[in-house]
């Protein structure tokens, strides 16, 4: 897995571990000192992203997914998560 750490401006530290193959997310761990309510949704979010193509993922899709599930994240936003995934993909 490739790790990418990103300190969000006025937010928290995102520590992303991902296996990405030909742009497709094979496995993913979203770690860091952020807050997510409800907390157990972290597993749903990781599962939602696994199997998706990094290049096809967009802000709207991710924001809508969180919104529909009434999830509140404090310390990072969808754009920060996408940035991390793209950084890992670009490093390959």
């Amino acid at each position, binding site marked *: 897995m490739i790790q990418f750490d990103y*300190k969000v401006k006025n937010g928290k*530290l995102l520590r992303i571990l991902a296996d990405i193959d030909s742009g497709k997310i094979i496995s993913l761990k979203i770690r860091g000192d952020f807050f*997510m309510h409800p907390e157990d949704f972290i597993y749903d979010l990781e599962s939602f992203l696994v199997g998706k193509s990094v290049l096809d993922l967009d802000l709207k899709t991710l924001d809508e997914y969180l919104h529909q599930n009434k999830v509140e994240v404090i310390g990072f936003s969808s754009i920060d998560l996408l940035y991390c995934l793209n950084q890992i993909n670009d490093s390959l």
Partner: protein
Amino acid sequence: MIVYRDVKDRGDINICVDEFLIDEVNRTNEVIWRFYGPKPCVYIGRFQSAEMEVDLEKCKSDNIPVFRRATGGGAVYANNELTYTVCLPLDNPLIAGLSIGESYKVIIDIIIAGLRSLGVNASFKPINDILVDGKKVSGNAQTRKNGVLLQHGTLLLDVDVDLMFSYLKVPDEKLKYKYVQSVKSLVVGINSFLDKPLKFEEVRDFFVDFIVNYFKSDNPLVLDMPKQLKDNAKVEYGKRYFDNAWHLKF
């Protein structure tokens, strides 16, 4: 309102008790404050990787247990600190209708008012920190479950920064962002700002009195933490929190 005066206890027991207090508030609709402390341990946040954040070998050789909180936020080496917990129904007028970020501020402002009346010129740093002279003296974290808000936070009394950061790994990315050369400039204990350093019991009793006075119109009841409540908490939540499968799961 009940204000529990508690002792220094094992970190995993403290986590059990906090979780149990949520159930108590859900059952009684009564606001609960609790002032207590940890025996030396490392607490990590709900979403943190123990391996990434903590020198697990060093902790093991020094007999410092590592405990994962139910709440998010960061890691701390908890030694000489006062911890507070407040647990209240989400429809309590203090926080009703507020966003999570707003409710952090409302509760942290009460702790800051306490610190100021103690003579410590503290201020709020969003999202969840209390600073004095630009250094962190307190981190706070919140969870919500079954219509109840729980917020807990640390108040560092004294910090041995060399020891703290021999247990905690601070990622370069975080240091880079904060524009500091050394982790030593990140945290400080409140005793550094007092003419006469205070012991855990003194700060705890000060805050118990402060909260009683702050909410005097609610006629708060001050109690030593009942052993039975802790025993019940251990029975209810020990299976999860007395197990490294939880604490070291990430």
